[in-house]
C-alpha cells in the first residue's frame, strides 16, 4: 500500500535529541525512509577561539566541548601541547590524571545509560545514575573546586595535588559503585521490554563502523577490539592491567553492554592506580610549572606561567575519551597562541553513521540507536 510521505522535524528542541540536534525525517507512516541530521545549533566557534587565545587560556574551552566528560578533553589538548613542546610529566601527576579520567569515564557512562533509559521511557535509571554521579562530582570538587568544567590538567602536570581525604573517599565511591552497577544490571539487563527495544536495533557491522570512522564503545560494540589505551598506550596505561570490553552483536544492546562492562573495568583501573600511586608529592614539571614556595602548606606549590610558547611545529595527538577517539591537531608557529587548533571529536564522527543505521526502522528505534551512540552536542558542533 502506498501512502504519502511525511516529513518530520525532530529538534532542535526535542526531549530525546540530547540537546539541540535536529533530525529531518522522511517517513512512510511510522517507518523512517531517510534521516538527515542537521547540526550546528551549538556551533560556538571553539576552533577560532583557539587561535585567539593562548595555550593555557584555551584549556577551559576544551572543558566545554564534551561537558559530560571534561577531564579527558583537558588531557587530550594538554597531551598535544606536551608532545609538541616535549614536556616531561612527573609520575604522580600522570597517576592523578588517570584517576580523574577514569572517574570521568564512569560519570560519562552513567549519564549516557541514564539518558538512554529515559528516552526509552524508564525514568528511574537516570535518577539513579545522577545520584552516583553526584558522589563523583563531590570528588572532583575536592580536587579542583569545579563540578563539571575543571581546567585541572595543565601542560607539565596538574594544577594541584590531591587533597587529604580524597583517596579514602574515592575508595568509598568505588566500593559503592560496584554495588550500584549490580543494581543497574538487575533493573535493566534482563528486562524483557528493554531487550525487545535494543536487540537487533541500529545494527552496524565492523567494516561499516570502521569506514564511518566510528570509535569508542560504539566501535567496540561492533566487535572491533580497539582501544587507544591499549594500542597506543599514553600516560601510564602501559603499566595498568585492564581488558578491552568488546561485544560482537553490533546492535544497540551490545553498545549498552560495552558501557556497563567498561564502568566495571574503570573501577578496576581506579583500584590499581590508587594502590600503586607514588608517594613523592611532585605534580608538575619543574621546568614548566613548579616555583618552590617557602612557607606554603606543601613544600612545592604548582605554579604555571601565563605565557607558554612551544616550538613551531604541528602535532596530531589522540586519546581514548569515554565517547571514542578524541584528537587535537595543533599547529604552532612559535608564538604564545596556537596557529590552528583542530578538534577531532568522537561524537561528530560517531554521529556520521546514524543516517545509514536507522533507515527502515521506526522513530522509537532511532531514539534507541541514537541513545547508544552517546552523543554530546557540544562535542559535535564545537
Amino acid at each position, binding site marked *: 500500500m502506498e501512502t504519502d510521505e511525511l516529513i518530520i522535524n525532530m529538534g*532542535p*528542541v*526535542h*526531549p530525546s535529541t540530547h*540537546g*539541540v540536534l535536529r533530525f529531518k525525517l522522511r517517513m512512510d507512516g511510522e517507518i523512517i525512509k531517510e534521516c538527515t541530521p542537521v547540526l*550546528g*545549533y*551549538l*556551533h*560556538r*566557534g*571553539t576552533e*577560532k*577561539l583557539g587561535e*585567539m587565545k593562548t595555550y593555557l587560556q584555551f584549556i*577551559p*574551552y576544551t572543558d*566545554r566541548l564534551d*561537558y*559530560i566528560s571534561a577531564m579527558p578533553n583537558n588531557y587530550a589538548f594538554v597531551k598535544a601541547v606536551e608532545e609538541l613542546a616535549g614536556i616531561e610529566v612527573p609520575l604522580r601527576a600522570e597517576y592523578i590524571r588517570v584517576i580523574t579520567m577514569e572517574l570521568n569515564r564512569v560519570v560519562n557512562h552513567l*549519564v549516557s545509560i541514564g539518558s538512554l533509559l529515559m528516552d526509552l521511557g524508564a525514568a528511574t535509571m*537516570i*535518577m*539513579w545514575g*545522577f*545520584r552516583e*554521579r*553526584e558522589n563523583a*562530582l563531590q570528588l572532583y570538587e575536592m580536587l579542583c573546586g569545579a*563540578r*563539571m*568544567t575543571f581546567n585541572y590538567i595543565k601542560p607539565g602536570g596538574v594544577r594541584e595535588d590531591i587533597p587529604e581525604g580524597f583517596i579514602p573517599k574515592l575508595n568509598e565511591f568505588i566500593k559503592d559503585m560496584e554495588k550500584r552497577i549490580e543494581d543497574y544490571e538487575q533493573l535493566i539487563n534482563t528486562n524483557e521490554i528493554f531487550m525487545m527495544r535494543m536487540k537487533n536495533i541500529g545494527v552496524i557491522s565492523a567494516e561499516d563502523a570502521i569506514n564511518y570512522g566510528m570509535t569508542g564503545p560504539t566501535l567496540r560494540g561492533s566487535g572491533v577490539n580497539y582501544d587507544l589505551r591499549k594500542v597506543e598506550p599514553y600516560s601510564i596505561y602501559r603499566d595498568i592491567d585492564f581488558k578491552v570490553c568488546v561485544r560482537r552483536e553490533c546492535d544497540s544492546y551490545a553498545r549498552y553492554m560495552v558501557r556497563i562492562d567498561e564502568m566495571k573495568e574503570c573501577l578496576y583501573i581506579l583500584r590499581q592506580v590508587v594502590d600503586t600511586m607514588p608517594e613523592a608529592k611532585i605534580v608538575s614539571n619543574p621546568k614548566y610549572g613548579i616555583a618552590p614556595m617557602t612557607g606554603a602548606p606543601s613544600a612545592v606549590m604548582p605554579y604555571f606561567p601565563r605565557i607558554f610558547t612551544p616550538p613551531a611545529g604541528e602535532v596530531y595527538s589522540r586519546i581514548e575519551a569515554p565517547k571514542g577517539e578524541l584528537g587535537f591537531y595543533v599547529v604552532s608557529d612559535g608564538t604564545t597562541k596556537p596557529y590552528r587548533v583542530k578538534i577531532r571529536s568522537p561524537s561528530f564522527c560517531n554521529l556520521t553513521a546514524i543516517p545509514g543505521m536507522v533507515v527502515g526502522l521506526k522513530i522509537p528505534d532511532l531514539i534507541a540507536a541514537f541513545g547508544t551512540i552517546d552523543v554530546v*552536542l*557540544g562535542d559535535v558542533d564545537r
Partner: protein
Amino acid sequence: MDPVTIDTTKIKSIKRKPVTALEKLEDTGLISTVLAAREREGLILLSTIDQVFNWARLSSLWPVTSGLACCAIEMMGVAMAHHDIARFGMEIFRASPRQADLMFVAGTVTKRMAPRVKQLYEMMPDPKWVIAVGSCASTGGPYHESYSVLKGVDLIIPVDVYIPGCPPRPEAWLYAIIQLREKIKNEGYGAKWGLNK
C-alpha cells in the same frame, strides 16, 4: 558573663520585620521589581485573587525541556535526586512549550539557535518566566568573542532572573528559583501585562 550567648533581642532590632508591601518587596532584594514599584508611587495593590493566583503560579512552575549546552546537564542535576526541584513542584518538565510556564535558557545561545529560542518563548502561554542560566546565556560568557554566539539571551527575550556561573552550581539554581518565586509573589495581575500604568 558567658561569651557564647548571643543576645537575640538585639538582632531583631537590627533587622526590622518588613511591614508594608514595599518593605516586603525590598526585603526580597529584587532590584528591578522594587524600582518598578517605586515608579508606581510605591503602591502595589494585590487583590486576594491576585494573591491566590500568584501563589498557585509560584508553586507550580513547570519548566519546558530545552537544554542548550553544558548547563543542561546541570539542569538535569538539579532535577535529580540530590537537589530535587520536585520539592517546589517543578519536576514536571513539559516537552511541549504550550504547557510550560518557565524556560531555563540553559547554555550558550548560538546565532543559529537564537530564533528557535525566541520561537519557543513565543509558543509558551502567558504568564511565563525566563531564567537565563550561566554566563553564556547572560552575556555570551567565555564565547563572547566568538562569531557564532549571541551575546546574551536578553537581546531576544525578556529575562527575569540571571544565574552567574559556568555552569552554575545546583545551589545557585535553587537560589534563583527561590528568587523567582519571590518575584512572582509580588507581581500584580496588571504589572505583568503593563495594565497598571
